[in-house]
């Protein structure tokens, strides 16, 4: 029989807790001194990225996204706070330890940052040279990586001969060379056209699923969050103003994410005797003939003021701002609520 003492149980849970997150930010601040005044690029950021998830940080330019992602591999040193990657405290590392740690955190960039004087194969081999692979090992690994990103035939091409999407694939292959558990994506699709963006996001999603790769990405495009992110944080002026699983936030009419995501709601008073409400739902309710059901059961007229049904990942979510006219409008909304629709009455 095995008995756990109180001590061993609690220490077991503690280690469990520490290794739980792929990336942990705790109260991270980054202050730039500009002449007399200090500018806080990050103003107390706390977030957790779980292993195997795709975590998006959404924000406008100047919100601090770029500083945030660079704090992960310490390209930017935070002024205060803690940054952990797979349980390792990054802010304490320097010199050789930091460089070794960086070798196993992949990073891809908006402008790809490929070396113009190296061929695709040589560029992908670059981090392997740094890690210390032999020439023979490099050759085998590069072939494997190029196959992974679908660039088998391009080994001897120079970046100038590649399209944007192909360049980013080289960037991804190179970022994966150190067999990272974590990939940082710095606006990786912002310089690409919509179709290429989708193919790159598909590749990232595929790598995430097949290899359990954790991805932290920053973007200013809602489309990227909608297409691949499991969780999201909205960054504004160095602070996270909202965070959580995308599927949760997007079905809450009051969340910033859903307000950004769905068509803008109409700002007007209800007509006489009418009620305006916003309802939201996800895949589970997406096929329901809900408006005709309301009309039949509660004898109300429903007009749609704004809204849409959108694919998010491989599911659908919808949000409609509706105006109900009829004596039993309140009952109709209660009924929706009971069916698990999120309902917000204006």
């Amino acid at each position, binding site marked *: 029989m095995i008995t756990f003492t109180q001590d061993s149980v609690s220490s077991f849970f503690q280690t469990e807790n520490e290794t739980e997150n792929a990336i942990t930010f705790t109260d991270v601040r980054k202050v730039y001194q500009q002449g007399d005044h200090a500018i806080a690029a990050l103003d107390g950021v706390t977030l957790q990225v779980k292993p195997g998830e795709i975590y998006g940080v959404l924000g406008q330019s100047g919100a601090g996204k770029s500083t945030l992602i660079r704090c992960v591999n310490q390209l930017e040193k935070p002024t205060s706070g803690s940054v952990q990657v797979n349980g390792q405290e990054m802010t304490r590392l320097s010199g050789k330890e930091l460089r070794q740690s*960086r*070798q196993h955190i992949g*990073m891809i960039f908006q402008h790809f*940052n490929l*070396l113009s*004087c190296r061929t695709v194969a040589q560029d992908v081999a670059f981090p392997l040279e740094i890690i210390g692979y032999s020439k023979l090992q490099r050759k085998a690994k590069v072939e494997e990586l190029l196959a992974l990103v679908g660039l088998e035939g391009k080994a001897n091409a*120079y970046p100038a001969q590649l399209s944007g999407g192909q360049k980013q694939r080289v960037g991804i292959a190179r970022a994966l060379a*150190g067999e990272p558990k974590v990939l940082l994506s710095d606006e990786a699709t912002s310089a690409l056209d919509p179709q290429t963006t989708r193919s790159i996001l598909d590749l990232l999603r595929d790598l995430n699923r097949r290899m359990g790769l954790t991805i932290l990405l920053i973007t200013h495009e809602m489309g990227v969050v909608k297409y691949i992110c499991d969780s999201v944080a909205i960054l504004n002026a160095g602070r996270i103003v909202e965070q959580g699983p995308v599927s949760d936030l997007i079905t809450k009419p009051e969340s910033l994410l859903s307000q950004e995501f769905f068509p803008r709601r109409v700002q007007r008073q209800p007509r006489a005797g009418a009620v305006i409400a916003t309802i939201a739902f996800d895949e589970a309710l997406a096929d329901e003939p809900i408006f005709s059901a309301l009309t039949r059961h509660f004898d109300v007229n429903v007009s749609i003021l704004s809204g849409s049904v959108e694919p998010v990942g491989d599911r659908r979510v919808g949000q409609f701002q509706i105006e109900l006219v009829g004596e039993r409008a309140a009952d109709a909304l209660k009924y929706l609520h009971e069916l698990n629709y999120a309902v917000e009455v204006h």
Partner: protein
Amino acid sequence: MQGQELIDGLWVATVETFYMVGISVLIAVILGLPLGLLLVMLSPGNILDNPKLHKPLSAIVNTGRSFPFIILLVVLTPFTRLVVGTSIGSTAALVPLTLAAIPFFARLAETSILEVDKGLIEAAEAMGCNYWQIVLKVLVPEALPSIVLGVTILIVNLLSASAMAGAVGGGGLGNLAIQYGYQRFDVAVMFATIIVLIILVQLIQLFGDRISQSLRKK
């Protein structure tokens, strides 16, 4: 001078010019390139950002570049005698030529290296490169096509500077042109010298462009 005498004279002078330019270019590149790299890396916002070292280094380079070459030739005479044991001839001309060439090439190299996309340095840092790896695997190879053009400019500049050295007894094509062409009014020598210089400059520029182009994978 005419006929075989002229050809012999030109040949000797050309060899002397090659000697002066060749050695001073070699030393200027060996010392100027690291200096240019340091100027870039120590500059604000760069990987070794250090204003306390950058400012004096930059000032030293500027000082070296402030002297008109003809003044440098004269001012350095005692120093030249100290270094090479003589103040006349091609070997003596090497000293001021090299000293003028180092800061000049440092600035040329700095400009070339500054052209390297900062994103590449960031990508290399993110991969875990140390400073040496960033210099040897990113900065120098990426800047090389532009550095080669800088060396071309350096060679042509030293060619004309070495001719000036010729005016004070430094030997080479400049010396020939001044002594025979100018002081003895030998127009044939003057023309011959100029034609040799024109051909040399054309060839140097042609090769420089070719090499730079073949290194540029765009």
